[in-house]
């Protein structure tokens, strides 16, 4: 019973982490159509930046996080403006943009290793508590993940629903040509979603830094989970991506009840597979 509670809790916390990653990726992919593979390393670089600011420079953690988020947003925008946009302008087919993003992926991933080394990076200046539910436990950082996912989720939902730019983003995701027809500047919006999506990933990165620490390989798992969540959730639906993210986390976590820990990716794959075959349009189908 305690194990079940622990696994459920883990599912919840991991789900929050996945949901953050999926929201950022979904914003970018759903709006611009770019399969932003380098989203993984951008997220990792953001987390390393926060680590460097906190552990090397010695800034207070909250300030390091704020600066790190801004830096990550700028990095995401840089990816768009200097890598993807030139391809868009020259009318390259989508697969060319995808391959470019793969190139960017290995460049950034390995630059992290070169600059920061391959060892695990942790921050020990931030103290946090451990809470118990019976014999199951969780930390304040994990609570923070859930709170961050909730806050960011509600914030994005509100932004998309109520603000002028938010509506424009939904419009562009729905029908890009029609967005141009009504006078929306799609380039400016693409910059905006790359900034937003990357910033969201940096929030996830800050919390993972506290929870597990960082390693240069963290990007692949992140973009993989985010991509799968977006596909399973239904392309173009932020809500679907969040639901799928939690679903993946719970399946993974509860799977551990019977299946050894190491098979996590395999479990994700099986869920993805079942979904693509049974319901190719994802959890939330578009109107």
């Amino acid at each position, binding site marked *: 019973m305690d194990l079940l509670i622990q696994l459920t809790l883990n599912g919840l916390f991991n789900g929050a982490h996945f949901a953050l990653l999926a929201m950022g990726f979904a914003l970018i992919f759903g709006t611009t159509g770019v399969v932003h593979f380098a989203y993984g390393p951008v997220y990792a670089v953001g987390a390393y930046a926060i680590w460097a600011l906190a552990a090397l420079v010695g800034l207070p953690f909250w300030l390091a996080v704020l600066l790190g988020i801004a830096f990550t947003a700028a990095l995401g925008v840089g990816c768009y403006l200097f890598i993807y946009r030139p391809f868009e302008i020259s009318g390259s087919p989508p697969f060319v943009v995808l391959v470019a993003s793969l*190139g960017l*992926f290995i460049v950034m991933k390995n630059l992290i290793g*070169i600059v920061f080394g391959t060892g695990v990076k942790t921050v020990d200046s931030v103290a946090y508590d451990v809470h118990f539910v019976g014999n199951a436990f969780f930390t304040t950082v994990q609570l923070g993940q859930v709170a961050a996912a909730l806050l960011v989720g509600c914030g994005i939902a509100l932004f998309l629903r109520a603000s002028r730019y938010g509506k424009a983003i939904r419009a562009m995701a729905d029908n890009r040509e029609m967005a141009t027809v009504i006078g929306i500047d799609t380039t400016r919006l693409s910059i905006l979603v790359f900034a937003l999506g990357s910033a969201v990933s940096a929030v996830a990165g800050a919390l993972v830094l506290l929870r597990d620490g960082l390693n240069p390989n963290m990007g692949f798992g992140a973009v993989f989970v985010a991509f799968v969540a977006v*596909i399973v959730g239904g*392309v173009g639906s932020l809500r679907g991506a969040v639901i799928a993210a939690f679903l993946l986390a719970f399946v993974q976590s509860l799977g551990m009840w019977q299946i*050894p820990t190491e098979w996590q990716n395999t479990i*994700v794959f099986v869920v993805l597979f079942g979904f*693509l075959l049974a319901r190719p349009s994802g959890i939330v189908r578009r109107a």
Partner: protein
Amino acid sequence: MEYLAHILVMVCLYGILATSFNLLIGFGGIFALAHATFYASGAYAAGILGTKLGIGFPLTLLAGVVVTAGLGLLVAFPAMRVGSHYLVVITLALQAITIDVLMNSKPLTGGPDGIAGIPPVSLFGTALTSPVTFLPLAAVMAALCCAVAWRLGASPFGRSLRAMRENEAAAQAVGKNLVRMKLVVFAMSAGLASVAGTLIAHYIAFVNPESFTIEETILILAMVILGGMGNLWGSLAGAAILVLLPEGLKFVHVPGDIADMVRQVIYGVVLIVILRLRPEGLFPETVFRTPTGAARSSVPANGPLSSAVERAGGTPGEVVVSATSLSKHFGGIQAVKDLTIDLKRGEIVGLIGPNGAGKTTAFNLLSGFLRPTGGTILYRGRDVTTLKPHEVVAAGLARSFQDLKLFTKLTVVENILVSLPAQPGDRPLDVYVRPGLVRRADRENVARALEIASFVGLLAKADETAANLSYAEEKLLVIARLLATGADVLLLDEPLSGLDTVTVERICGVIRDLARANKAVCIIEHNLEVIRGVCDEIVFIDEGRVLTKGPPDTLMRDRELAERYFG
């Protein structure tokens, strides 16, 4: 010396990986990002068999190829069901799962530590343990694999793959069985990649999961892109460049622990730069084009109908296709209801009606691209209602598309060649087992394709890439491709739209010739003047139903029909 030999061995192995990956993405246009998985499969097959069962080299190679080709088939099945983004995700997932399996099946794979002590290859009593002794074997195997890949790529089957890559619907419409083609290319590509895996396992006597991550797939992808998609020699060059390029690092004293990462950065940068500057790669695919050579000069320009089109049998006026009460609905929308139409030998039927009347849907039903929700289609008495598009073409009914769907990167003559029926070279087995037959048949086919090109007036452009044609020439090529299928029943979807009067006259002439060759022809057309000039019968469709049919002059005088047509 040992160092140089080692570099060359690596060039050979990556050459195998890049050429085999090129078959899949460059020829087949299948964007599956899991090549490192197939590579790993070969390597671990050798590792496991070599250390656990004491099985030696030629057998490990064979086992690796068989297992990995099977794995390729396994991946191919879901890959065929899903579109491009999904395929990327699925294969990415496969890549992740591979690492999982290798890491976690400790008793078999040794987990993160991998498998050490894999026995070296021994040939003629000597163990090939040093790079210098291994190089000849690597070179021979690479040459062999490249020959196998090249044979396939340069064969009519390879041409069909390139056509499928350009446009899947059009490839089906000229009779290609896409399912079979995808299975074959997946299995071949995977099997060849496993050879590199087996070799590396024996060569360095060690395998571990780290060598087979997504980065490895991206590296092989970079080699293919750099060399040029669809050009197998290019892939060899790409492999050589990307293996050699980072060796320069040796001279700038990069610390050992980051050298590997610097190498990866270089790969990534090369990939992005080549995509920006030369997306078609260093060596474009032109060398794999089918040469027309001497055959071209022996074909007269503007050749006669008789040499291009075989006269269809049967008596003129006989009903060949008889579709009865066809219906089709999409969701709640009834696109076609109770559509009945007969096509007769030697007659031209014009399908007219306002936009959205269901004309193209009717073609899609007749040609097997859509399955009707009700009704039957008989072709010479045989029920063809539920056949797949390529089976319909084989039966003798072919169609063209409103939006042309040419194989744009293929030459004019290749566009026609691909469409010729029953080619021995389209059977992968015959490509290897009966090369003489394949070569002879293809020589004849080239001659035939040239005659067809000549008939429609495209002989002068035979070796031109379809993408460089004028719009009128594109339309002529569509007709040529349709003729090449050898079908008795030809459905032409707006063959004349957007053309100047001279070309309209020319195509009308061709269409009349087809009827003269006893073909049953059906055209969708908006230009009423042309319809009146060409058709023997007009079928007027509105709201998915046949409203009326009859000779053009009678129908066009009908005031009510005119109102409907313009309204």
